[in-house]
């Protein structure tokens, strides 16, 4: 029964690692989020006290603190709106690209696909930094706008919410295109011809044939963009201004600046709860990938 040993070894080695270094850390976030905060190091009290008999020392104050302050709720809402807007624009740009790549002939298709994904390989941080250069007051975009006579004064393009959306759409676009391409690539192009032969115009062909067939790809791509963007920290920090506060920034400051660990943990755990539903949908799609090999 040698293969039993192998199977156990293969299943349980990564299992052990992930429980220890992923599951337990998530549980610790929950634990600290219901701990009583205090001055000191670490800045929270134990949840089990043993001095006068056994006592459980937990509180929901950290959650009440977050939900009673619009500073925190507002940042959550800002982040959700940001994630929705960016996902929408990624889809708007990504869909036609993915569609045309998928309908190209096979040689061109592979080249285009590699070209689309290659920028994703270069450094994330530096790609955001590149937008900082482009959007400067004396940056290349302002120079073009002035030369075209669209504006006489340089526009303040950097340090606002639009620059943030720009940066996110740019860096997350390949994550939208890949799954979309994966699904579009599978379906039979003859269907488009058939629908044209049956007298449907382009518009109706798109909404009755192409769009419904690519819904799984749209969901997968949207979740790959939406979920991480809710917690995005670097892009708002580099390109954003003080006009909008986002969840990532608030969490970072709560932990590193205010040193309120239970508060930061409560913020993080609330984030997990908000993202649980999208993550579950993502997992259903993910396990289908493995069954049908659709990526």
């Amino acid at each position, binding site marked *: 029964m040698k*293969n039993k040993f*192998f199977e156990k070894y*293969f*299943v349980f*080695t*990564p*299992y052990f*690692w*992930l429980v220890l*270094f*992923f*599951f337990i850390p*998530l549980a*610790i*976030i929950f634990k*600290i989020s219901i701990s009583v905060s205090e001055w000191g190091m670490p800045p929270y009290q134990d949840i089990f006290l043993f001095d006068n008999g056994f006592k459980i020392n937990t509180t929901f104050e950290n959650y009440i603190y977050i939900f009673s302050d619009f500073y925190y709720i507002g940042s959550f809402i800002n982040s959700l709106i940001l994630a929705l807007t960016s996902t929408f624009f990624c889809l708007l*740009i990504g869909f036609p*690209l993915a569609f045309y*790549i998928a309908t190209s002939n096979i040689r061109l298709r*592979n080249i285009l696909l590699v*070209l*689309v*994904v*290659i*920028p994703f*390989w*270069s*450094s*994330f*941080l*530096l790609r955001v*930094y*590149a937008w900082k*250069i*482009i959007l400067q007051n*004396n*940056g*290349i975009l302002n120079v073009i706008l002035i030369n075209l006579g669209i504006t006489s004064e340089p526009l303040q393009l950097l340090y606002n919410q639009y620059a943030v959306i720009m940066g996110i759409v*740019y860096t997350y*676009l390949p994550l939208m295109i890949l799954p979309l391409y994966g699904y579009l690539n599978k379906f039979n192009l003859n269907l488009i011809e058939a629908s044209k032969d049956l007298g449907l115009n382009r518009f109706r062909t798109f909404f009755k044939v192409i769009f419904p067939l690519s819904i799984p790809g749209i969901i997968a791509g949207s*979740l*790959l963009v939406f*979920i*991480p963007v809710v*917690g995005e920290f*670097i892009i708002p920090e*580099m390109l954003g201004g003080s006009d909008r506060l986002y969840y*990532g920034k608030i*969490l970072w400051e709560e932990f590193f600046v205010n040193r309120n660990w239970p508060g930061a*943990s409560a913020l993080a755990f609330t984030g*997990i709860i908000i993202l649980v539903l*999208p*993550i579950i949908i*993502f*997992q259903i799609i*993910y396990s289908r*990938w*493995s069954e049908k*090999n659709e*990526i």
Partner: protein
Amino acid sequence: MKSNIIKSIIVFLGLFFLYFPILVLIFYSFNENKRVMVWKGFSLRWYNELFKNEQIIEAFIISIKIAALSATFATILGVMIGYSLVRISKIPFKSLYIFLSSTPLVLPELILGLSMLLFFISLNNLVGIPSSRGQLTIFISHVTFCIAFVAIIIQARLTDFNKNIEEAAMDLGYNYSEVLYKITLPIILPSIIAGWLLAFTISLDDLVVASFTTGPGANTLPIVVFSKVRLGLSPEVNALSAILMLALLIIGIIYFYFNKKFKH
């Protein structure tokens, strides 16, 4: 004919959008002027300065070391997960297994980083290790979130090729470990290399998780770069960008070579 023109225009605009910022960055790295945005003339001055900057060089070496090690561990564990999910039917608490091995793909890095930091602090309070945070704690965190990326590549490859090959080898008298090492492993080898490269780049590129789990003497390259460009522009970072972009683009091309090679 008309649709072909529209198609070409859309693809061209899309690619222009993706590559334009990278080209701008490389272009400005050759600017002589210390003020990044004012063009003064072509020069390699900042490349020269970059190689004399000990802080950046040191951070680069630390990053490469952590990335190579964590990619290797993540690849070993990721291959095991990919194999388990496709070929092993009895996995206890399978939905937990899928949850643990796929959630790091999408979970915001900030939440991941915070959970790792609090975990290391709690562990230190409990048993005294790790005594301080640094390269080891970054390494462990990077392995944890790179596993998922390797697993998904291996999984795709394993579902791709026919299980019958393995069964045929078994019928011909190979035992389980022989099948594994002589049949399965060589077939998925290109995907293993692809997975390693992906994990390597992700670790090399990570800023958020590393910022949480770093400690004295463990400033990785993204941490140093971020501290330089958070508030402004830096000509040295421009030069570094150009070099890193090209290096990573080459890794990306190699990745595609391995990931596509044995696909139909």
